[in-house]
């Protein structure tokens, strides 16, 4: 059985100090831990505060971190599918999806599935190398936070969130596709 393509080694998301959250520039209150095979993370060694864990770490420590539930988020790499979190999504305050390259569009599917299949209502954050011009589609796929690590000012990114004011398909932001809305009209 072929496995999904692996993410290129070394492509880890950054954790910028500021980000876009719910349509405005905001301070980043979360600490994202990159995947680091050399450093073992345990529930005890984890610093206090809001932290976003790599999926594999979270899966291993989940049971031990019950007490800190409200401040433990998870990030999915692009070769990790949303079903690996599955119904646990509804218990999480934050899930991030990683773009190792902006051309790697798997996070769009992850976002929709987390929101529409697994009932995730917390902060859905895009991390990594996505670009400004993807914001409008990311928003439609359920993302409400954008930890942008490119070189454009965040204020310009806010404009791109408004590139489209309507849509053809149903998605997280639109319960009915246009052809059904029109047929009902």
């Amino acid at each position, binding site marked *: 059985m072929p496995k999904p393509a692996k993410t290129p080694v070394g492509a880890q998301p950054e954790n910028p100090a500021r980000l876009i959250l719910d349509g405005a520039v905001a301070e980043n209150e979360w600490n994202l831990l990159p995947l680091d095979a050399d450093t073992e993370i345990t529930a005890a060694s984890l610093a206090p505060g809001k932290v976003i864990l790599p999926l594999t770490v979270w899966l291993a420590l989940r049971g031990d971190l019950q007490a800190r539930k409200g401040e433990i988020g998870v990030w999915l790499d692009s070769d990790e599918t949303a079903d690996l979190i599955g119904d646990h999504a509804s218990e999480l305050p934050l899930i991030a999806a990683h773009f190792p390259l902006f051309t790697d*569009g798997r996070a769009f599917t992850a976002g929709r599935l987390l929101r529409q299949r697994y009932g995730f209502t917390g902060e859905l954050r895009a991390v990594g190398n996505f670009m400004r011009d993807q914001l409008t589609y990311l928003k439609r796929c359920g993302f409400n936070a954008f930890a942008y690590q490119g070189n454009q000012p965040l204020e310009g990114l806010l404009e791109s969130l408004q590139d489209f004011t309507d849509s053809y398909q149903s998605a997280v932001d639109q319960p009915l596709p246009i052809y059904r809305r029109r047929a009902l009209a």
Partner: protein
Amino acid sequence: MYQYDEQDHKLVRERVAQFRGQTERYLAGELSEEQFLPLRLQNGLYIQRLAPMLRIAVPYGLLNSTQVRRLAHITRKYDKGYAHFTTRQNVQLNWPNLEDVPDILAELAEVEMHAVQTSGNCIRNTTTDQFAGVARDELVDPRPYCELIRQWSTFHPEFAFLPRKFKIAVCGAEEDRAAIRAHDIGVQIVKNAQGETGFQVFVGGGLGRTPIIGVAIRDFLPEVHLLSYLEAIVRVYNQLGRRDNKFKARIKILVKALGAEEFARRVEAEWEQIKDGADELPPEAIEWSKRFFPQPAYKSISGDHAEAVLRDQAGADKAFSRWLERNTFPHRVPGYQAVTLSTKPTGVPPGDVTDRQLEAIADLADEFSFGEVRVTHEQNVVLADVEQERLFELWQVARKHGFATPNIGTLTDMICCPGGDYCSLANAKSIPVAEAIQRKFDDLDYLYDLGDLHLNISGCMNACGHHHIGHIGVLGVDKKGEEFYQVQLGGSANEKAALGTVLGPSFSRDEMPDTIGKILDVFVENRQPEELFIDTYNRIGLQPFKERVYAKAS
């Protein structure tokens, strides 16, 4: 045909504004080459060998005369006065300036056109049968479904950064004129025993470096589920398709790696989760789409009388008779016939038309065919609804404008990519080969005697000229910096889709016309009465052709 409402207009206007901003940021150095690349591709803009190339979308090949006139105007104002019809029923401009592209897109938007998703790793323009709605062998008109697929796939937020490009074709007739088995998804409209409309769904077809004929993963999908099923297929592909090697990233590679059964199982499992959800097509949504494709206001005509008049005209004029035989197609309504305008007279790159010719096409459409035309995947233009009694008149006008070469479906009606003359990917030129073959085989009686014969030419293994599915396929290859041509035989694009087999070592350009001549000689010598080339080939196999072509001179 489909008409935009305020929502369509708004979406396309917003897209033009978005791309204008992106182009400005690129020209100002705020967007890198690498970042701008997928953005411009998804707006139809390539950077080619000599200049940018803009590929304009023609949804399922349908254009009205206003749109054709606007294309003529655009080729004059922003280009060198001609346009190129592509094998995916689109239109390309070969010489626009990058800075002008947002203005071109704005001019297109005014006539309900755009260049959205004509390139890039996204869902491309959906294609179909050029005789949709008029063919006698049609079960159901595919155009309303094509339009729904267009709306579902346009600006799809989840599927704009797929592993690779993604092409869908729909066929509603018995004969597959849309080559659906050569597409990432092929949709064949079928009826079940209860007379209900549904779809047979093929996946994993494609040409390029690894040509594969698509396989059916579902034999009957009720029409209500069309879009949710497509969504399930593309979602599985988006998650599992390879992204580490662009030559292994098409869905056909995933289907092959998983096996068609396992791929189908995953699609069905995904689809189980989303069927009966928002993407379903309730009857009223399908009816809504069908309203845009009403039967035109046909006159009530006695078919017998019209056919008798045609027979007399054909009897009196050999040239008209030839054109009638090759360039027209039977219509389901008595007294009407569909006409194919050939863009392939000898000496013109296949699919190329001038601005004046575009205007002539628009005039012909208004005068003879309810103001609409269709672009074919063989790069010709169809007037679908012409009164038989006016065919003679139409033929005379078409002849004046260079569209009446009576070669449709024959050897000289070649599919040909732009090749090394224009394209930066090409290994070899393709247009001069096409022209040399057209010049050698200009005897119409000989061409007609050969019958239906598809010769397809690609300038490189990306296979834009569909060489794998030509009865005779020609592929340009590079040998130590020199251009050579490999010949394949036995390909087929229709419901008996097959990939051609390589004949043997490749030929220089000068050798090509004679090589084709030898292949045709073997056919003529071995054919049974009225047998077509492909049938003779399937009966006698490759060997006799090989022996003749590679025989040592005695």
